[in-house]
């Protein structure tokens, strides 16, 4: 399900399936997207931050169009205990690889992968960052 901001309209609450993973997309060329994500974060239930939230930063291929400091995004990831993925949507290879990564994360968060929970997975990712 794709949304431009949170909270999701309450009208369709009863029709909505269970949400297993929330991916916040930040366009490094748009400061507005970061602000939007920051305000939307407040609408996410705390339990999601145990491995069911991740930040996806797009547009990193163009260093010269950068409007946001990557440091600020990494700090955001740390503050919310959630992984930050960087990708460039304009390159097909990276786009496909990123989609596959997100799909794998979704499978774990939905409980489809035996022996791996969302929480254990996110702590694995955090350790590899350090």
């Amino acid at each position, binding site marked *: 399900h794709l949304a431009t901001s949170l909270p999701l309209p309450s009208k369709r609450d009863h029709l909505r399936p269970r949400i297993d993973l929330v991916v916040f997309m930040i366009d490094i060329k*748009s*400061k507005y997207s970061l602000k939007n994500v920051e305000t939307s974060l407040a609408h996410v239930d705390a339990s999601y931050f145990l491995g069911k939230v991740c930040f996806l930063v797009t547009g990193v291929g163009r260093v010269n169009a950068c*409007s*946001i*400091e990557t440091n600020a995004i990494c700090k955001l990831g740390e503050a919310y205990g959630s992984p930050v993925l960087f990708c460039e949507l304009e390159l097909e290879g990276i786009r496909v690889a990123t989609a596959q990564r997100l799909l794998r994360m979704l499978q774990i968060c939905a409980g489809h992968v035996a022996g791996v929970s969302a929480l254990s997975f996110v702590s694995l990712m955090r350790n590899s960052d350090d």
Partner: protein
Amino acid sequence: PLPQESVDPQKTAFVLRKAWTLYSVTPLYRFRRARLRDYARLLGAFIAAEKRKGLAVEVGVELDIKVALATLADLRGSELDQAALLVQLSSRSQASSRSSEDKLVWSGWFCSVFGDDLSENVPEDFTSLPLFLSHGPESYTALVGSWFQKTFDCCFRRLAISPQNLSWMVAMWAGCKLDRAASAVELVFSVPRLAQPLDISYAIHPEDAKALWDTVQKTPGEITQEEVDVFMDCLYAHFHRHFKIHLSAAKLVKVSTAVAAAHCDGMVKILQSQYLPGVLMLLTELAISQIQ
């Protein structure tokens, strides 16, 4: 804010009020200050040879190009910096050869202002002058550039300025104290993903901009990323309140203040001599980070 060193305004007058195209340059190998006259002669011969090969700059006009290289001792940040190097191409057309008036057709200069980050780590035999500014026809820039690349094994790259860096510049320059009445602070944004490109120009009264910056900046002489962000957010919020447009979603492409103007494609115009060292220091830093 910006360092204002006592620089002889006469010597640096040529820098002001011209649109300079910016490049980053890797260190020059075996460049010798003593050989400037030789280099001028070699560069002149190279340009003449390229013209004969048919890569003429101006078709149908016979131009004799004279090359002059000079050291500008004043244009540097500290004693650790290399003094700036000025290259000038002048023409003496056949028609006016009697009046022997040389007309300046192109100028370019290499400099390093507080470029210690690079010059410290450079091996012997290398001269660090990371910032190159050119003014004049692009064809001459290409000729001079390729001669320097061949002769000193260096590499020129257009210096791109990101929206983040432009924000830093406008915050810094809008906060500068000026004696004379200043021109407006202007930001130009380009709106992405539209069928027809749209540019938004946002002009702010210079006193308002300076007043805003003064309330944001905590320590005079120091600027932090947070302060720049707060300054820009205030400008964006003000614009949104009036026009319901989120400028933060657009791309900042040009900033213009009374001190200097800069464009994301790597062009700058410096208007005030008292802040020249500060502006060059910032540009040197950008050039160095592009090289590394």
